[in-house]
């Protein structure tokens, strides 16, 4: 039997999938995608039954539901009782009172840096990036939502208020940021640059980027500056039209179980906080230290959710982002 | 094993270009016919029409009494031997020769026996297991012949089979070809543009030019009694002397000639002029001579006509000295009309 999952790269780790596959004697086929729009396009081009589960940005669950791609989860299928309360995100994961997805992992897009080369005090404010002190040593993570969100925070705009009008205010600082930075790059290139010392600061980075490198280079660190950071949270849901709802639910249960959560948190592609607190028991102290387990209360209080743009704003954001890349 | 071929008012056009025009030929069974003519005159086209690779625009081909005009090559009692031999490089000689029989469904044993027999005939049975690339040009030519004959065609078509061989080998293969044809009795239609080759092997020669037949006759006929200026020239070098009739005598720039000819060009081959002959050409001065082995090739300027040059082949023994003035005589005169017909 097979389970087809549309996922992000952290779910491709065999260490995560194998226990489930063994337990249920199935094979999990995974397809990675990049960005919600691309994921939804894949679903649009598929036929019912092609996919069983999907990993998606918690803030985009509604968008997927609106287009009819997600099926409601049976009541009580997944318990969020042990979750960090801030990441249950019931408003986002349910529509019209029906739950369509459940949060499984979260973390922060904020500042990652090399503490051997950077004064950690400087990292306490986003403004440092525009101060000129680190010109040429900054990398920008190439994903428009979190970085625009961060630039917004630096400008004093909450992510929730990021609309077309607000966006225009970001153009200038964004271009300045680009001018000050050495590169705008995807995960690997950013990681490499930070790890090899080509850059010292990464805006948009966080534990998901530095954690895997921790054993290699303990100097890599991250923080949430005083302006705040962005909370990313990914949810998992069942795809509408699946022929194997039971198996899909089982998979979602596995992922949200303490054991699954622990494996997902330390997945080879990137690390992140498990949504389920109970996973803490399955994680080693070292792992928890790298994840900053004990700081979560503070961090969660200061972080804001990703912006949730409408189609128009989203398009405008991407145009702005492309302009920045091409500048 | 042999058949007569009739070609009845065949014409062929490629798009707007007329490659053959009103060709009529009656070839007897067992004849060795050579199609001779300059490049582009339509020899290959005619051969392809007989072999069935082309359908003529007009006219018909009758082989052994049956109309074959629209029959595919493989269903005709003809086989073609191609200029480049077209041996199959990946098969050994035996399989090459046996190929036609295999296609006819002859069993393995029978066809191999027959192939070896054919190879025996061309003296190559010892090489039966070799591949064609391990053979010399002349040997390949023989294999091609064996392959074509293995299927016992009534008519064998050969498109410049000796074209790729060097002179010496060519002369040798001519003899062989002629011998084999005598032995098997098949009608051979052979294309060449080498008139020596044509004369050496043909029973009859078809001289072609620009898509039509200029002359069809035995080698002697064609060489000694050409019908047209073209065929006269094509068969070998020719001196041309314009003559007019004046009373009972013929008058030429060389002076009056003791011949009873009409109006036209008196044609004399270089070897038919010399210090003796049937009629005098008057005195001439030797301008230049070169030794060509079997003869000396000389240029004479007639004293009466300093604008003319006569090319004369004098036999080896003669030792003419440039500048000498001698009387020249002619033999075997042919008169052709100016317009070439």
């Amino acid at each position, binding site marked *: 039997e097979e389970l*087809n999952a549309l996922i992000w790269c952290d779910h491709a780790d065999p260490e995560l999938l194998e226990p489930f596959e063994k337990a249920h004697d199935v094979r999990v086929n995974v397809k990675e995608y990049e960005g919600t729009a691309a994921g939804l396009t894949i679903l649009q081009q598929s036929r019912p039954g092609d996919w069983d589960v999907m990993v998606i940005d918690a803030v985009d669950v509604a968008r997927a539901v609106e287009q009819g791609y997600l099926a409601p989860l049976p009541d009580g299928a997944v318990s969020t009782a042990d979750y960090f309360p801030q990441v249950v995100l019931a408003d986002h994961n349910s529509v019209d009172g029906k739950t369509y997805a459940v949060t499984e992992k979260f973390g922060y897009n904020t500042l990652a840096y090399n503490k051997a080369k950077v004064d950690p005090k400087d990292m306490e404010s986003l403004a440092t990036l525009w101060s000129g002190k680190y010109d040429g040593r900054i990398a920008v993570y190439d994903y428009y939502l979190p970085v625009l969100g961060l630039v917004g925070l630096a400008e004093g705009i909450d992510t929730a208020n990021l609309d077309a009008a607000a966006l225009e205010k970001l153009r200038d600082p964004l271009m300045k940021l680009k001018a000050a930075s050495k590169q705008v790059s995807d995960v690997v290139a950013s990681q490499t640059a930070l790890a090899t010392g080509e850059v010292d600061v990464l805006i948009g980075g966080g534990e998901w980027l530095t954690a895997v490198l921790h054993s290699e280079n303990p100097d890599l660190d991250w923080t949430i500056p005083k302006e705040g950071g962005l909370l990313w949270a990914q949810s998992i849901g069942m795809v509408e039209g699946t022929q194997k709802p039971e198996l899909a639910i089982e998979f979602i249960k596995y992922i949200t179980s303490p054991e699954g959560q622990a494996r997902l948190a330390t997945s080879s592609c990137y690390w992140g906080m498990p949504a389920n607190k109970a996973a803490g028991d399955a994680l080693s102290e070292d792992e928890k230290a790298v994840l900053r387990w004990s700081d979560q209360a503070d961090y969660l209080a200061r972080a804001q959710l990703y912006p949730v743009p409408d189609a128009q704003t989203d398009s405008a954001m991407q145009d702005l982002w492309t302009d920045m890349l091409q500048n | 094993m042999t058949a007569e071929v009739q070609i009845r008012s065949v014409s062929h056009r490629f798009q707007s270009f007329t490659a053959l025009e009103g060709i009529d030929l009656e070839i007897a069974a067992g004849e060795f016919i050579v199609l001779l003519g300059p490049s582009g005159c339509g020899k290959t086209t005619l051969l392809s029409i007989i072999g069935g690779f082309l359908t003529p625009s007009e006219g018909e081909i009758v082989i052994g009494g049956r109309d074959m005009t629209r029959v595919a*090559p493989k269903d005709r009692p003809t086989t073609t031997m*191609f200029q480049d031999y077209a041996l199959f490089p*990946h098969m050994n000689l035996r399989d090459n020769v046996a*190929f*036609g029989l295999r296609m006819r469904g002859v069993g393995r044993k029978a066809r191999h026996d027959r192939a070896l027999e054919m190879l025996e005939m061309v003296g190559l049975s010892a090489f039966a297991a070799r591949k064609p690339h391990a053979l010399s040009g002349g040997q390949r030519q023989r294999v091609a012949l064996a392959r074509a004959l293995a299927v016992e065609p009534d008519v064998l078509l050969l498109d410049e089979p000796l074209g790729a061989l060097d002179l010496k080998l060519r002369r040798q293969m001519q003899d062989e070809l002629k011998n084999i044809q005598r032995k098997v009795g098949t009608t051979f239609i052979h294309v060449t543009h080498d008139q020596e080759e044509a004369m050496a092997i043909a029973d009859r020669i078809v001289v072609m030019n620009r898509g039509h037949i200029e002359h069809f006759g035995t080698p002697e006929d064609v060489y000694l009694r050409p019908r047209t200026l073209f065929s006269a020239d094509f068969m070998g070098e020719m001196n041309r002397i314009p003559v007019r009739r004046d009373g009972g005598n013929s008058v030429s720039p060389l002076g009056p000639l003791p011949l009873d000819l009409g109006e036209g060009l008196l044609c004399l081959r270089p070897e038919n002029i010399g210090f003796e002959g049937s009629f005098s050409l008057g005195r001439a001065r030797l301008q230049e001579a070169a030794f060509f082995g079997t003869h000396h090739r000389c240029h004479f300027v007639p004293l009466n006509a300093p604008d003319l040059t006569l090319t004369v082949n004098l036999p080896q023994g003669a030792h003419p000295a440039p500048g000498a003035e001698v009387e020249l005589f002619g033999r075997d005169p042919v008169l052709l009309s100016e317009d070439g017909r």
Partner: protein
Amino acid sequence: MRTLSWVYLGAIFTFILLPVVVLVIFSFQDGRLPVPPFKGATLKWYAKILADRDLMEALVNSLMVAVLSSLVAVTLGFLAASGLARTVLPGSALMRGLLIAPMTVSYLIIGLGLLQMFNQVGIRPSLLATGIGHVVINLPLCFAIVYAAIGEHQKSALQAARDLGAREWQVLWHIAAPMLAPSLAAAFFLSFTFSWDEFIIAFLLTRFDVTLPVEIWSMLRSGLSPATNAVGSLVFLVSVAVVVTLELTLFRKGSK
């Protein structure tokens, strides 16, 4: 001029071989990052990739797609070349042009076009779809190679076979294919290489049954690792071994 030649040769060979050498060396890196300093040699990355189920599956997929699509491309190319070399068909030039045309179009465009068409007719991305795309890109190549190999000599051999009574399929099977074997082999070999190495079409047209380049791409996207070096080196060493073997056996014979 002589010394200049050697200096140039040395420089350009360094340039050409440098990345491969670095790739191979750091596949043995005993550390998390395949960049200097070299921290000592280990084979663990090789062990890791050999044990990687997805990678090995991708390898098998790649082999399958490459072999099958090359076979189809060579067959179609061979038939088309035989047909076009045989007679002047009306519109021959146009047909040749059409058959060659995909060669001048970027793979990305071919992949994108196929993706959209497949979407419209409801064919799902799969290895089959990828294989179809690979035939599209390799067909022109196979056609061109075989077509160029059919010279006057081949043509007359085919004529001779027909004259001796062979039917059309017999001509193709007994004469044309064996005679053109070297070019067919070359066409197959090249097609195989291109298909084996092709990324963008496979990327667009597969789902979870991915080919090796796509799998490597996702490895790359999950971080810098000597494991990637190990995969690259392994593929490289195996290919070189195959090429050298071919060079020493097949092509040696042909080249003399």
